[in-house]
């Protein structure tokens, strides 16, 4: 009963975020394109190849593979769907002097114009002192005001984050319902699909790495695993609502690694701290070297956790997109060369995507398993010889 209410509340909240993004542009003429964009986004399928081709055509400038790749793995204000169609997203800024500013990203006109005293500079919002709608080339950046600005906009990655979390909530709460409704019976449908993975995380990750106290950490490990796995997979889908490189974003991996670090540090027992601060059975002068190393290790572990996931996913995206860009790089010299290379590029891209499917699981597993290992080391009871 309460679960279904909560689910409704969550979906309402989730939906209202989108509605909010549409309302944010109330008063501007971008309302209709925005709703059109949503409709198109739902109708559109594999528009991604055309997207790049159109870009090349419309811009009329030389194809820039580096920029294309960076645009795809980076974040953006507004979600570029295809061609000139962008889903505008709310820009939320807090300036210590100017206060809160909330407006649609469409006001920036793809980074060409200023709005509300802000503009886009190399993908990030900077403060300016210019009237609304001034061309960015005529505006100068107000460094002091930029420093005082906190950007908590709903960017492409944030929307992707909400979508993935919404999916997680929906899927697992319905699976949980299946467990209570059909208690003690054989699993069916999606429950059957996810149960082996849940059991895998429980038995092969948590139980084997943490030991008897694993149950307490299961919620975090399961959430982290499915969050990373889902977003890795969504990152492989080239069009909306996939396509955002969320698990390849360092801010996301930072938060995940930080949570692991906090869990480890908060739950560390006497045995764990004893081994970090004063390794038993080690002479004093060695401790002078060992203790700083151990303390450094304490921070290095989550740091490596953060870098590993970020680098693996980003690298995979860069490689797949590089192969893809080859088509257009060669296509610029001659259409024939583009088509010829296209066959091989496509084969390689498919191969890379297959590999990424594997990596999607492996990285989710590695992150969860290492988190479990660190937690296991922190809560391990002293071994009596």
């Amino acid at each position, binding site marked *: 009963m309460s679960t279904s209410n909560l689910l409704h509340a969550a979906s309402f909240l989730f939906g209202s975020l989108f509605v909010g993004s549409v309302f944010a542009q109330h008063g501007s003429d971008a309302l209709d394109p925005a709703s059109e964009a949503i409709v198109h986004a739902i109708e559109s399928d594999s528009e991604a190849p055309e997207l790049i081709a159109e870009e090349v055509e419309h811009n009329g400038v030389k194809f820039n593979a580096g920029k294309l790749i960076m645009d795809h793995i980076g974040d953006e204000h507004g979600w570029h769907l295809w061609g000139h169609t962008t889903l505008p997203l709310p820009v939320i800024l807090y300036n210590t002097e100017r206060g809160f500013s909330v407006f649609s990203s469409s006001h920036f006109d793809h980074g060409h114009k200023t709005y509300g005293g802000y503009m886009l500079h190399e993908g990030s919002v900077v403060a300016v002192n210019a009237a609304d709608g001034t061309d960015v080339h005529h505006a100068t950046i107000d460094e002091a005001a930029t420093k005082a600005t906190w950007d908590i906009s709903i960017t492409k990655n944030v929307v992707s984050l909400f979508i993935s979390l919404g999916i997680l909530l929906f899927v697992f709460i319905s699976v949980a319902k299946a467990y209570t409704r059909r208690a003690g019976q054989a699993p069916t449908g999606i429950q059957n699909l996810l149960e082996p993975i849940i059991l895998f995380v429980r038995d092969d990750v948590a139980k084997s790495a943490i030991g008897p106290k694993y149950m307490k950490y*299961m919620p975090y490990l399961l959430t982290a695993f499915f969050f990373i796995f889902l977003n890795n997979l969504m990152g492989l889908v080239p069009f909306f609502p996939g396509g955002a490189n969320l698990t390849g974003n360092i801010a996301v991996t930072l938060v995940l690694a930080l949570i692991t670090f906090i869990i480890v540090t908060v739950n560390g027992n006497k045995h764990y701290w004893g081994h970090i601060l004063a390794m038993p059975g080690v002479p004093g002068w060695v401790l002078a070297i060992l203790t700083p190393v151990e303390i450094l290790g304490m921070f290095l572990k989550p740091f490596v956790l953060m870098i590993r996931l970020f680098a693996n996913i980003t690298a995979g995206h860069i490689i797949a997109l590089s192969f893809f860009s080859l088509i257009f790089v060669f296509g610029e010299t001659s259409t024939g060369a583009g088509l010829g290379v296209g066959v091989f590029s496509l084969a390689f891209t498919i191969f890379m995507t297959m590999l990424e499917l594997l990596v999607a699981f492996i990285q989710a597993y590695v992150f969860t398993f290492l988190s479990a290992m660190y937690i296991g080391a922190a809560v391990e009871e002293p071994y009596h010889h």
Partner: protein
Amino acid sequence: MLLASLVQPSFGLIFWMTLSFLAVLYILAKFAWKPILNGLKEREASIADALDEARKAREEMAALNARNEDLMREAREEREVLLKEARDIRDKEIAGAKAKAKAEGDALLARAREDIRNEKNAAITEMKNQVAELSILVAEQILKTKLGDPAAQQSLVNKVMAEAEARKS
């Protein structure tokens, strides 16, 4: 510059990620993971119980079968004994009846023989008596006729005397 922004975590994303991830973590922990993990645990326990019970039931069945066989064997043995007793009794009965019938028959025969002998003796005695009577009657008649004249009597006396004499010597 773009590459630098790639490894520089943006504040906005950290903010939203922390907020929403922790919220989802809390919601899932309470409404998804708890029932799922409990459900899994309960099901595993029930399966383990069921397997255990099945094993126990099998063992009980085996024990029951063994006992059944014992019972069957005992029953068979008992039947054998009963049959044997019955056969013995029957044989004895038959033998007894035969002996009794034989004895009765013998007794009857003996009585019949006795009767026959008695009848015979009686008949013989009667016949003797009748022969004696007839002989006396005949002898009387003969004597009446033959010894009418004295000469004939004398010759007879002589003859009898002579025979008695002959028998004496």
